[in-house]
């Protein structure tokens, strides 16, 4: 047993639902108890789908257990086929049904249905959502792909995008455009929007583009083995990765890469002097393996950040992320426990986090800006506007996404310079969004004590005492001159420095020695 509050991934049958919901003309009959239908709302609410996921649940209840859940499964299966008239069905069990051992696969096979029945074995107590998606898609391809002649023109399939995939909708569009510029047509995109009859046509393509390794790798490997289709290893997220991807495709197909980079803005935006302040910003990156790897490269090579930590929650990607971490000279954090992630972030105290919905909340708690780069995500990361991650437009989108949470460089300087200005005092907040500046309370001498009210609700007066370290008044005054959004960090660093040196008082000199100690 393992005590859990937050989970980065759902159970494997949710992965199967992501594949089923992505496709058309396919139905999923899921042997599951009442209540498991909660997963429908991930698709209807977070992804805002305008239809129900194509899933029929057997909804067995306690009173069915003594009787005949197997018959219930068969009836549900028949009803679903009659009502939805799918081209194929996938059948499987959720975690509870796995325990009652009805064997949906065997039952469905004996029903004599005229459409293909694809059984799924998803071990709920050892694997998770991404495995469920990968395995389901692999089984669908294995059962439905038919030997074909290659197309006359050079074509490829795009493999891996599913329902509830982070930016899957726009990534497919951007990638299709990129390939089209190279003179390559897309044969089948799967599972997103594919029909079972489309899956049959997959072997007609010359090669495969593996867009989402988490959900498409098993199928890509099968197609390579069985139909001699090579697949791409680079996921084109970021400028460098996109160029590498183009070169990889050129090498596979022999087409000469003619690429129009006129809409690519990230390189100039990043070189422009406005971006100088991004240099060496310390970032921590966490998410699914694919997005973490892509963003580590973007962060270091294209934004000029310093990567201080990387990690992923899906063990399937542990090996490549460990290798990547070594390359970047940092430790890899492979965990699905968000408390460990929080601990790592606290210890590294980065200036920015690139992560999932969860890291966004950790960032909020620790006061660290965060941009979301990977699933799991909430409804706001299924945007209405076009916002791919892959290709050149994806790079533009990522540049904007990564800089928006940061206080802009000029703003940072102005806030420091005009710290005591009536509009830029400590209570005004770091952003011009939301919270309006409150007028400063003024004491009799005309000075301000707003910063005191904010910083020292606990202090008994100067000098301030914290863990046996005393701030002398000149150091305390100097600390106040540091912009409020980095002041907490400066205070912590200085105190840590003092403790380390065995000092019990912090003087002005100690403050600046600490500053020099932590300088990069």
């Amino acid at each position, binding site marked *: *047993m*393992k*005590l*859990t*509050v*937050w*989970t980065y*991934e*759902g*159970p494997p*049958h*949710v992965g199967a639902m992501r594949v089923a919901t992505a496709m058309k003309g396919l139905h999923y009959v899921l042997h599951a*108890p*009442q*209540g*498991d*239908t*909660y*997963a*429908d*709302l*991930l698709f*209807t*609410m977070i992804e*805002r*789908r*305008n*239809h*129900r996921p194509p899933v*029929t*649940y*057997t*909804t*067995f*209840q*306690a009173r*069915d*257990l003594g009787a005949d859940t197997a018959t219930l499964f068969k009836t*549900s299966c028949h*009803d679903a086929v009659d*009502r939805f008239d799918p081209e194929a069905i996938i059948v499987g069990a*959720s*975690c*509870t049904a796995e*325990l*009652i051992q009805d064997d949906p696969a065997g039952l469905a096979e004996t029903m004599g249905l005229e459409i293909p029945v694809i059984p799924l074995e998803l*071990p*709920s*107590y*050892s694997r*998770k959502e991404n495995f469920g998606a990968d395995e389901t898609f692999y089984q669908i391809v294995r059962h439905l792909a038919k030997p074909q002649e290659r197309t006359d023109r050079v074509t490829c399939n795009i493999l891996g995008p599913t329902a509830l995939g982070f930016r899957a909708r726009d990534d497919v569009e951007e990638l299709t455009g990129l390939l089209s510029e190279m003179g390559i047509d897309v044969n089948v995109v799967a599972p997103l929007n594919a029909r079972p009859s489309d899956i049959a046509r997959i072997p007609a393509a010359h090669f495969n583009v593996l867009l989402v390794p988490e959900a498409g790798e098993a199928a890509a490997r099968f197609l390579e083995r069985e139909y001699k289709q090579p697949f791409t290893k680079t996921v084109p997220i970021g400028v460098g990765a996109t160029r590498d991807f183009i070169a990889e495709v050129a090498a596979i197909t022999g087409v000469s890469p003619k690429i129009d980079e006129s809409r690519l803005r990230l390189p100039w935006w990043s070189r422009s002097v406005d971006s100088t302040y991004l240099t060496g910003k310390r970032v921590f990156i966490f998410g699914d393996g694919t997005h973490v790897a892509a963003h580590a490269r973007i962060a270091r090579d294209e934004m000029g950040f310093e990567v201080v930590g990387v990690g992923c929650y899906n063990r399937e990607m542990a090996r490549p992320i460990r290798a990547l971490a070594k390359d970047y000279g940092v430790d890899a954090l492979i965990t699905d426990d968000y408390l460990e992630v929080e601990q790592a972030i606290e210890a590294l105290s980065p200036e920015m986090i690139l992560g999932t919905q*969860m890291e966004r*909340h950790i960032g909020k*708690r620790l006061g660290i800006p965060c941009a979301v780069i990977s699933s799991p995500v909430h409804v706001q990361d299924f945007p209405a506007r076009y916002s791919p991650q892959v290709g050149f437009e994806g790079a533009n989108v990522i540049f904007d996404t990564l800089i928006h949470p940061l206080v802009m460089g000029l703003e940072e300087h102005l806030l420091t310079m005009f710290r005591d200005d009536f509009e830029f005092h400590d209570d005004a907040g770091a952003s011009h969004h939301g919270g309006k500046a409150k007028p400063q309370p003024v004491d009799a001498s005309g000075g301000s004590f707003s910063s005191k009210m904010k910083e020292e609700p606990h202090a008994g007066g100067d000098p301030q005492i914290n863990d046996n370290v005393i701030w002398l008044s000149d150091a305390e005054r100097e600390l106040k001159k540091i912009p409020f959004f980095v002041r907490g960090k400066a205070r912590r660093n200085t105190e840590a420095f003092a403790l380390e040196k065995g000092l019990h008082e912090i003087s002005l000199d100690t403050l600046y020695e600490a500053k020099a100690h932590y300088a990069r």
Partner: protein
Amino acid sequence: MNVPLTPTNGGCRGAPVLKERGQREVFCGLTGIIWLHRKMQDAFFLVVGSRTCAHLLQSAAGVMIFAEPRFGTAILEESDLAGMADAHEELDREVARLLERRPDIRQLFLVGSCPSEVIKIDLARAAERLSKVHAPHVRVLNYSGSGIETTFTEGEDACLASMVPVLKDTTARELLLVGALPDVVEDQMLSLLGDMGIENIRLLPARRIDETTAVGSNTVFALTQPFLGETHAALERRGARHIAAPFPFGEEGTTAWLRAIASEFGVSAETFDKVTAAPRARARKAISQAAEVLRGKSIFFFPDSQLEIPLARFLTRECGMTAVEVGSPYIHDALHGPDLDLLPAGPQIAEGQDVEKQLDRALAARPDLTVCGLGLANPLEAKGITTKWAIELVFTPVHFYEQAGDLAGLFSRPVRRKQLLQLEAAE
């Protein structure tokens, strides 16, 4: 004290109930944890289940998951399925670690799930054993919130019912008010009853274990929520007597509910009117404003929380709507009867669900407003059917006089929005 009149066409209590079995589109009882843990401030809810259970709680709790919630899931792993003795040791260890980390916890609920029920982990015995280990600081109880046994709000019922046997004994004549309500609503309720001179009021659940109440043969109890069938039975087993009443939704429901208690305690008509006159007038005014757009509109309820029957009663009688179908996961005559009496005859009353058939009926009827879960709401909206998602009715303060306008507002908002949006291309 003017008693609410039963409708001239006879009400729905004797109406034939359409009982259906098939696919259900409902939450399981684990979901109740999300509001129960807010209410019981020293309780922790430990689900013994699978990753699916954890994922459900996370999906249903939304952002609440980040606020150090007092609930969690002990996820069963493959090794737990192999040997049973092992599972108990594992549970003891996880509980000890949890209680060490959260010394503020005074009551711990071991919540059964489908997997733990199917492999028959004896959580009742585990609770007894753990109670001894961690006594007297922590009391450990157990109930099942599994989908195979409970639907959505029945999770609260199962939880409260598990507390009834351990309540202290009393011979005092006390009023016990049963059902978790938002604090603000609970305070309004207590103040109304207090103003009528009714004393010795106890609450189940109490906000903290130290305030936990007693029960005995002189206890009378009233339910504030319509889904407390098991708790009702457990209290009767302890000798307490139920005060049957319509549920306190809307002005009329609140008045009828208060009146049933007032009669039990011999409150004079004069006192009753003096206490309720002002809030009744306020509630009527607020309802009439919010309900303007609801008048004459039809409504269809998918089963969800067992709140459907009292809410249909409120919407038809106080907001001028017509009910087409009122679906409820379970109908319990002792609990829902008084509301069925008042609900004008006409709608199809349905118990249970075959979601595909029910969708066919809803699409054929094309009601003006459909109350349903989040898995169905957007798909129905896409077909041009206006919906009100049902879960909000459980999370939002909607009981008693001061919330009556808000309650009507929850239903009128989607209708008003439909009228406001001009998204079709100009012809």
